[in-house]
């Protein structure tokens, strides 16, 4: 390498002004959420019966497979507006679980691939990993709150008597093993705890290595991080898929798709990338991350572009196979999502926000290199994938009684505010640039 570039040490300061903005976001979210809940409660008493009647006939016309009489959520469910809150809480939580874990995933990919270009901006995705312990508590806590309404398979009576659900009985060991079907889903619960536990353990281990590298500058930490990352990637490959089945696909417990694990992963991954891009751009605008230039932004932009296309590929593969085979057990999933508002407009909006916009807007080289364009596209992708999760989770729970309004938007703002707060707070705890990263010079000379 020709010449050595010296790096100034940088420390992100989490200003009171930024905190205030986030609190305003959360407060505004709370207000909108409260109004949304109130609106949902009042509309629940009104046209609910009529609407439900239409929905029911339509559902029958759409040939709900086998268990027509057993439509999910029909027995001992909460009121419609309560279910709406539960659904929205769960989907926001799952979305932000993804953002947190993708931060760690990004860091690990960089280590495992021995990538040099990203060494100046790795602290941003690392800070996202700080959401993992909070996500763990939220997921486990929320699961106990919402399981009766979201997860049809948790009810013991679907496994009992003459009307026992044959499909769910066959699937029950996956949830309840080694206990009997209808009791506590031990296997499911252990998986949940194990995934979060190990993800958090890997996060702490890699963070510790980074901190040690800052202090003594030895390259041994890089080598250790690399092997930790490789193990994490193997574990994540399995756990992200299983998490997707457990937490999202099991809502539609009769239905299954072999693409689903990848689908959820793709959605998490690209929204995480968009978040990284957005934070990096904002930090640069605030005068931080001087060592990140348009070449690094170009690479991040390519990541967003490529994985938007990857997500579309997975989306389409799942859709085309089900569309073409035309098996009622499978098509019911899409019929639910394509026929009735708000799922139908979200279904098409999803494709525009997550494929058409990123594809066209990020296609040119200049778009990926300029902060002004990345700043527009990154939020589009993030919001688009939030809608994606909405449509993965809501229809299965709410059937044709689902809604989209201030309730959902308010909760998203609350979660977003909390998540950004945790990330920025984490960012301020460590130096913004790992000065002793062995590949920092490569990153400084990065040129594409």
């Amino acid at each position, binding site marked *: 390498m020709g010449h050595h570039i010296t790096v100034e040490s940088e420390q992100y300061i989490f200003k009171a002004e930024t905190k205030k903005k986030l609190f305003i976001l959360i407060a505004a979210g709370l207000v909108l959420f409260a109004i949304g809940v109130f609106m949902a409660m009042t509309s629940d008493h009104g046209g609910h019966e009529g609407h439900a009647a239409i929905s029911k006939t339509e559902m029958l016309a759409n040939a709900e497979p086998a268990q027509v009489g057993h439509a999910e959520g029909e027995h001992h469910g909460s009121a419609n507006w309560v279910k709406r809150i539960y659904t929205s809480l769960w989907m926001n939580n799952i979305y932000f679980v993804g953002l947190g874990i993708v931060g760690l995933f990004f860091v690990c990919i960089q280590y495992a691939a021995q990538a040099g270009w990203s060494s100046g901006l790795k602290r941003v995705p690392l800070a996202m990993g700080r959401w993992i312990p909070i996500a763990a508590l939220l997921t486990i806590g929320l699961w106990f709150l919402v399981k009766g309404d979201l997860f049809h398979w948790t009810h013991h009576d679907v496994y009992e008597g003459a009307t026992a659900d044959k499909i769910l009985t066959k699937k029950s060991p996956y949830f309840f093993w080694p206990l009997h079907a209808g009791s506590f889903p031990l296997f499911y619960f252990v998986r949940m705890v194990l995934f979060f536990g190990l993800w958090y353990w890997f996060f702490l281990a890699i963070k510790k290595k980074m901190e040690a590298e800052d202090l003594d500058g030895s390259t041994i930490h890089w080598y250790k991080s690399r092997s930790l990352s490789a193990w994490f990637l193997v574990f994540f490959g399995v756990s992200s898929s299983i998490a997707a089945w457990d937490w999202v696909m099991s809502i539609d417990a009769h239905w299954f798709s072999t693409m689903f694990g990848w689908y959820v992963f793709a959605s998490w991954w690209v929204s995480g990338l968009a978040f990284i891009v957005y934070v990096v751009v904002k930090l640069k605008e605030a005068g931080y991350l001087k060592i990140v230039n348009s070449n690094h932004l170009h690479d991040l932009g390519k990541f967003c572009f490529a994985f938007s296309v990857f997500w579309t590929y997975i989306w389409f593969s799942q859709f085309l196979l089900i569309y073409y085979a*035309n098996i009622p057990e499978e098509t019911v999933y899409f019929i639910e999502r394509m026929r009735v508002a708000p799922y139908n407009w979200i279904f098409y909006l999803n494709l525009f926000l997550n494929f058409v916009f990123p594809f066209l807007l990020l296609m040119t080289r200049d778009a990926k290199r300029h902060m002004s364009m990345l700043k527009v596209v990154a939020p589009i992708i993030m919001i688009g994938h939030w809608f994606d999760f909405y449509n993965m989770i809501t229809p299965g729970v709410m059937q044709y009684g689902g809604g989209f309004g201030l309730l959902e938007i308010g909760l998203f703002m609350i979660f977003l505010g909390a998540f950004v707060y945790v990330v920025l707070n984490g960012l301020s705890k460590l130096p913004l640039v790992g000065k002793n990263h062995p590949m920092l010079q490569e990153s400084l000379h990065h040129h594409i």
Partner: protein
Amino acid sequence: METNKNFIVGIFDDEDILLEGVEKVRDKGVKIHEVYTPFPVHGLDEALGYKRSRLPIAAFLFGLTGTSLALTMQIWMLGIDWPMIIGGKNFVSLPPFIPVTFELTVLLAALGMVATFMIVSDLKPYKWPRQFDLRSTDDKHVMAIDLAINANLSSDDIKRILKEAGASEANDKNFE
């Protein structure tokens, strides 16, 4: 391009010296014909003042051609010329057309881009490229300067400028 025969060839040992050299030579008002390097040198395009390649535009247009060709073909075949019921779907149903459309888009974009590149770069079968100095395939960076274009400067001037810019050698090269 092929008609010019008389060149001055500057040899550079190091890519950093080359990059600075390119700027120094251009500052003196010398127009550089081309620089040959044994490996890609980052920043050389900018130093030589090359404009961005328009190849992506060609690729996009070829891709667009592929998309419309594929859709037209399938809609005409399966919707107009020979309608057949397949799997109970409409004659013209978009989802099963997408894989073919995607493939033809990629195929035409790729082939079109390669063809465009070869035409623009004047690469064709049996073409024997000019070798200004064979060491450019080994370990030297070679800067070729066309005497006919730089008619206001004598060959000695150019050699002096090259040496000042850091060239280890400056040689005459004539093609017959």
